[in-house]
């Protein structure tokens, strides 16, 4: 990513990293594909870069708190073969919506349904068809040496899809994108591009789930033209033996509106990173999320809101509940360039620890070069308020139920920001269910 953070965090990498090579062993499987030249070039650059860096270790900027060592304890395999699965066993859509189905990273056109104003192609079809601006949108990742997981994703550039929303279109129903993963120690490297043309509007609900053991390493590019409006929701509920890493790079043009929200439960290790670039004037974006984790699960939200031009608004609201030995990381940064006057930036993260063994790390940052801006942040981590707990118990509510009620209230304050009401209700119900089941 060509971000300001990346520059200052530059670390010289060794020539080659022995631990990286097994990760690249299966790139041969896609070398025979008929791919356009720039795709091949991007794969080669990604592989070369990843071969030098390997997976980020705790010494990497942005990775001080999330340890990827458990990822290396399993040998994950990339498969170029068509995914085998039973379509009748895929979960039904959450809401009345259009649908895109992706299994092990591979777009399934036969299981997908979309309105006229939205077009979707597999990534390779889009590349072969010389879809306009596609190369720019996909090569835009900047210096791959600084984002090893994106480099790894690039080395396997093949799966995923490109979605376009037509100019002035307002998609009447949400588009659910089901990412289903079938396990078997699969390594899955989808690349997704959402493009909203000028003055278009859409709601996307990504669902990430699966069974068994797998590693999914996604790169999601979002390009919003001027005055476009996107609600980008992620519901991440991966299997207990899985690793989920997503980099969402969001580019926003003049007057664009972006509302991002993610709800995460489950998964062994989940990292959701957002890089929001407010490239032109008067962009309005909010990004938020909640996580509910227990056992040995770990979750990481890493967010950069990068303000380029005046009048931009960015808000970050994150909350999470942790039990047992769960660990969470929040790294949030608001970066305001010299030209971005009248920026309004806000950032918060609040973690509720239900057990003394749970651990929360937060690194909130503001970096401001303009002189007329309004930016603030807040981060807390704490336990259930004993006074509130006693109050509930004194009214007859048993301890576990009282704790669940307080935790639910805590998490609902963040769920509130989801403007799609039926999804908000589902998230609330999911949080309540998680809290009710946690000790059963």
């Amino acid at each position: 990513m060509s971000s300001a953070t990346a520059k200052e965090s530059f670390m010289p990498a060794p020539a080659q990293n022995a631990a990286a090579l097994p990760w690249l062993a299966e790139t041969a499987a896609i070398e025979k594909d008929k791919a356009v030249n720039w795709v091949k070039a991007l794969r080669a650059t990604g592989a070369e870069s990843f071969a030098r860096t390997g997976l980020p270790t705790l010494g990497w900027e942005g990775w001080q708190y999330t340890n990827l060592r458990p990822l290396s304890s399993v040998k994950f395999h990339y498969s170029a073969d068509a995914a085998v699965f039973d379509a009748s066993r895929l979960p039904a859509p959450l809401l009345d919506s259009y649908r895109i189905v992706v299994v092990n990273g591979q777009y399934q056109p036969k299981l997908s349904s979309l309105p006229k104003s939205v077009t979707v192609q597999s990534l390779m079809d889009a590349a072969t068809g010389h879809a306009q601006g596609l190369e720019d949108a996909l090569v835009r990742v900047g210096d791959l040496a600084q984002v090893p997981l994106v480099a790894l994703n690039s080395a396997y550039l093949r799966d995923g899809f490109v979605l376009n929303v037509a100019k002035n279109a307002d998609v009447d129903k949400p588009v659910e994108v089901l990412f289903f993963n079938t396990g078997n120690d699969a390594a899955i490297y989808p690349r997704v591009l959402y493009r909203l043309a000028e003055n278009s509007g859409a709601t996307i609900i990504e669902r990430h789930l699966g069974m068994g053991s797998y590693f999914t390493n996604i790169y999601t590019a979002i390009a919003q033209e001027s005055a476009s409006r996107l609600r980008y929701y992620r519901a991440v509920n991966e299997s207990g033996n899985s690793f989920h890493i997503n980099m969402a790079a969001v580019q926003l043009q003049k007057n664009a509106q972006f509302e991002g929200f993610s709800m995460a439960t489950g998964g062994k290790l989940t990292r959701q990173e957002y890089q929001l670039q407010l490239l032109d004037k008067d962009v309005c974006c909010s990004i938020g999320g909640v996580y509910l984790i227990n056992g040995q699960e770990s979750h990481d939200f890493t967010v950069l809101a990068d303000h380029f031009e005046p009048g931009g608004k960015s808000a970050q609201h994150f909350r999470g509940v942790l039990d047992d030995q769960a660990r969470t990381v929040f790294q949030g940064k608001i970066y305001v360039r010299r030209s971005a006057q009248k920026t309004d930036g806000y950032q918060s993260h609040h973690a509720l620890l239900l057990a003394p063994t749970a651990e929360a790390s937060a690194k909130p940052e503001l970096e401001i070069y303009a002189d007329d801006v309004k930016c603030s942040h807040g981060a807390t981590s704490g336990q259930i308020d004993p006074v509130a707990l006693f109050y509930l118990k004194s009214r007859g509510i048993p301890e576990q139920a009282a704790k669940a009620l307080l935790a639910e209230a805590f998490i609902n304050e963040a769920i509130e920001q989801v403007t799609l009401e039926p999804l908000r209700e589902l998230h609330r119900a999911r949080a309540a269910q998680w809290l009710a089941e946690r000790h059963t």
Partner: protein
Amino acid sequence: MLKIENLHVNVAGRAILKGINLEIQSGQVHAIMGPNGSGKSTLSYVLAGREGYEVTQGKITFNGQSLLEMEPEDRAAAGIFLAFQYPVEIPGVTTINFLKTAINSIRKKRGEKEMEPAAFLKLQKEKLTKLGMDAEMLKRGVNVGFSGGEKKRNEVFQMAMLEPKLAVLDETDSGLDIDALKIVSDGVNALRSAERSFLVITHYQRLLNYIKPDVVHVLAGGLIRKTGGPELALQLEEKGYAEYYGEGEAA
């Protein structure tokens, strides 16, 4: 109904209650009056089962059950209610949801069926009207953004909904103006019955003009110094607590 015998309580290693004896019969209203720091609130918290209050001697029996071994939620199910001196704000939990959960938890513990939503609504409407409260308040977070008076009213509303056997009112009059005091007292008086007892804790006699006690106790220095009828409250109003200071305070 309630029998407290030789109750000694330490808080953070310090003796606060030093041998309380108190017996409340069904249907009686007892008032406990005393200066600040006399142990009034400690007594109320020990009855409700708050953590951090160490009972070093004595026992409390409630309708034949030994209270001290019970969790706060079990005491609530047994029929004890504490109206807090400082009601707690709980953002994100509506009073409605809170009360439904409380009522149904208590019913479950007593082996009864959950309350029908229609019955709950009817009960709630009736009690709200009595206390001059707006139903909108119940849709907000418990006590969030409430004035001092609204919080106290909400305590009495909860009490009315939960219909306890013993209600402990811990300085429910503090922070109330005369109008609010009347409304709250009316709410309490409406609940008086032969099966329900009250322990009214207050610093001032004023409240007892509205809630007429059967018995008045003076608590000072961790001991009940005097017990009498309603006239005792009037004496205190005149003379203050001065005569009760300094006695047995050697500890």
